[in-house]
């Protein structure tokens, strides 16, 4: 710590570059666990802090990042009909994923720093997770300038206007995605954006995602999917077109394991999203007019299709925008799963319902908590009276 001591003082209160203090502070606390002592309150503090919590989420995203990178390359070569080895797939994937991350962190980081400097607050690590998430929920074909706009929208309107990390109502990463969905729908919906192609696509390759195929199935829906190469196991592993990080349910589950074991992600939410999805899928199955309807798609197909698993594990569990009470988490998660399957099956305009279901429930999370809190008050009141 000594060598930069003299320079450091220029940035402290009263120094020449006082306004830039948050930058120095961010760098220092990033690299060092500083010997800041407790004062007032407890004399010792848990070694756990928000920085570590955020890091765990990023680590849990690694499997999806790695698989997603590989899959982008794999789909590229598959669509062109060129045989390619694993290394080539990864390298091709990196040429797509690295620019997306560079743009996301440059733009998002700049906003984050700007707001911290204006407020004179410490730069906090919240954008770490948002920034790691955003490229993974984008199609590989997204234009970089649109991504930059989306990140700006997500960070500024989704988070900073509410007061920064911890204060936002909606999940900022999903706000970014929703922005694109409504502002540039051609870039993030339809059948053609989910694979990066070299221009020519061989006949044997299906550009549409399984969910897109489900809009107008020809014959039995499972057979229809399988006919296009999407059997359950392939969808589970994730070698299919889609948003970069969402395709592999296996990679997502590996992340879920990390989140649940470390206690960082709420298992209550994850489990109840799946439970809600299963309940709605079973209900739809019961009322399906024919096997050739999206309503007939069984629950386990819903789980591995599109962003269901990714949303349940990484988006719905965001502690800031989710319900905060334990009882509320069950309701919140269940309704997300239920709404997702409902949108997928009953609304042909939107083949995927995960993003909107989570944003919708983000909005209702405070109401759910309010109800749980009132019930707690009533129970406590009765106990005191008795």
């Amino acid at each position, binding site marked *: *710590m000594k060598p930069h001591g003299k320079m450091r003082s220029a940035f402290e209160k009263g120094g020449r570059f006082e306004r830039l203090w948050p930058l120095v502070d961010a760098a220092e*606390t990033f*690299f*060092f*666990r*500083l*010997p*800041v*002592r*407790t004062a*007032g*309150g*407890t*004399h*010792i*503090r*848990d*070694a*756990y*802090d*928000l*920085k*570590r*919590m955020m*890091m*765990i989420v990023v680590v849990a995203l690694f499997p999806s990042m790695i698989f997603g990178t590989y899959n982008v390359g794999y789909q590229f070569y598959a669509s062109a009909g060129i045989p390619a080895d694993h290394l080539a797939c990864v390298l091709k994937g990196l040429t797509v994923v690295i620019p997306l991350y560079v743009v996301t962190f440059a733009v998002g980081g700049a906003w984050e720093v700007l707001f911290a400097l204006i407020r004179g607050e*410490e730069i*906090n690590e919240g954008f770490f997770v948002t920034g790691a998430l955003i490229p993974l929920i984008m199609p590989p074909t997204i234009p970089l300038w649109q991504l930059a706009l989306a990140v700006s929208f997500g960070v500024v309107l989704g988070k900073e206007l509410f*007061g*920064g*990390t*911890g*204060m936002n109502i909606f999940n900022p990463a999903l706000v970014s995605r929703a922005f694109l969905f409504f502002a540039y729908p051609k870039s993030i919906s339809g059948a053609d954006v989910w694979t990066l192609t070299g221009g020519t696509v061989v006949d044997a390759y299906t550009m549409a995602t399984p969910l897109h195929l489900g809009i107008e199935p020809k014959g039995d829906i499972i057979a229809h999917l399988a006919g296009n190469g999407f059997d359950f196991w392939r969808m589970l592993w994730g070698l299919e077109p889609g948003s970069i990080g969402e395709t592999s349910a296996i990679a997502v589950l590996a992340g879920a394991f990390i989140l649940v*074991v*470390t*206690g*960082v992600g*709420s298992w209550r939410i994850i489990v109840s999203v799946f439970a809600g999805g299963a309940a709605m899928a079973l209900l739809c199955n019961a009322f399906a007019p024919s096997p050739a309807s999206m309503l007939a798609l069984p629950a386990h197909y819903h789980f591995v299709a599109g962003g269901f698993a990714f949303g349940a594990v990484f988006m719905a569990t965001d*502690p*800031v925008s*989710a319900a*905060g*009470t*334990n009882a509320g988490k069950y309701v919140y998660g269940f309704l997300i799963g239920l709404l997702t399957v409902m949108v997928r099956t009953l609304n042909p305009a939107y083949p995927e319902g995960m993003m909107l279901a989570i944003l919708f429930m983000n909005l209702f999370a405070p109401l759910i*908590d309010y109800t*749980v*809190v009132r019930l*707690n*008050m009533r*129970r*406590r*009141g009765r*106990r*005191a*009276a008795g």
Partner: protein
Amino acid sequence: MANYRLKKGYDIRMAGGAEAILERAPFPESVGLYPADFYGMTPKPLVEGGERVRIGTPLWRDKRRESLIVTSPASGTVAEVRRGERRALESVIIRTDGKQHVAASIAPPPKRVFSSARAEIIGALCAVGLFPLFRQRPFGTVADPLATPRAIFVTAMDTAPLAADQGLILKNHEQEFQRGIDVLASLTPGRVHLCTEANTGDGSPFAGVQNVEHHRFSGPHPAGNVGVHIHHVAPIRGVGDILWHCTVQGVILIGRYFITGAPSFEVTAAVAGPAAARGRHVATLSGAALSSFAEASKAFPAARFISGNVLTGRNIGPGGFLGFHDNLVTIIPEARTSVFLGWLSPGFSLESFSASFISRLMPRRRFAIDSNRNGSVRAFVATGIYERLLPMDILPSFLLKSILAGDIEEMEKLGILEVTPEDLALCEYACPSKTDIQRMLRDGIDLMLKETRETE
């Protein structure tokens, strides 16, 4: 007799527990008392520097209730009446003469301890300065001598980190304890609840105590907190529903006064902590100078001396004095070194409630925890951690939010009457946003107290 098995909570794995041996400490050259130990009292000093005092000489009294006084635990000379900001009384320090004369004004206590003699007993306890050993719920203030408590709780267990051995405190004082219990029973129309550790096998030193309703609690900290006991045994019904509580040491002091007829402030305290030179139990005086019995290990160039435990105690420095209600002095190393990329380490050697540290797989390991804050202060994030650390039907994060909003009605409905800062101290320890939860709760309780006193 009832058993309560609590699951929520956490035992911090801290190194430096006091050995289960009891020594007599050298008689302290000075004793000191802090008004901060008497929450709810507004002190008006009754002595000046240089004045001679004896055991039981009033040092200050409460401005509102004149009978509530704090007295000297030793005979000697007032060395200093220390004042802090806005001339608020900070401490009274007495240089002892070792003679331990009792003040002439002290009368022997009533011989018969029946409820018919209640007023007389309270008067006697107030006069010798033993009455502040009672604290009161709601709010955790020093008890009000004019109130009649629905019940009295005696907390005979302590689950806080490195807590003193309650059995050692009781040892050789069993008769005094029983006599004290009988005195307590005369002060309430209700019951005296004795709450002890359930996992002591058949050898509980409190098994033979009479005239009480015995409750056994098991579980991690804060299962030993009186707030938790009250919540499960006889929950607070409202602002006017008053309960008193007392520690084992307090009951012994009261019993001793009723047996010997003269006040004595001799107590048993533990010296513990990773930076303590010799962790052990000592017999000394309430308010004794730490220098007479607690010393930091030479291995730690900077150490913090805490009267009480690491969660709720006060940093009083090596020149400080044992707090009025405390039976523990904890000495911990001060944080001194930076750790490169500390938040990234797998965490073999760091204590944490979070399973994101490998150390969580080592339940038997003990850690020499220092005073590092371990992170920067951040906004509240609903991580669900608080909820796992409070074994009560209370939603801590929503209670705290109602306090931040200053909404008294909500605070009451969400359970502020049932908790004091010590009950949420563990949440503060584990909070990843490093928020000052105890401070917040204290502010909320201050506000409640102000409102209720205004309507009195």
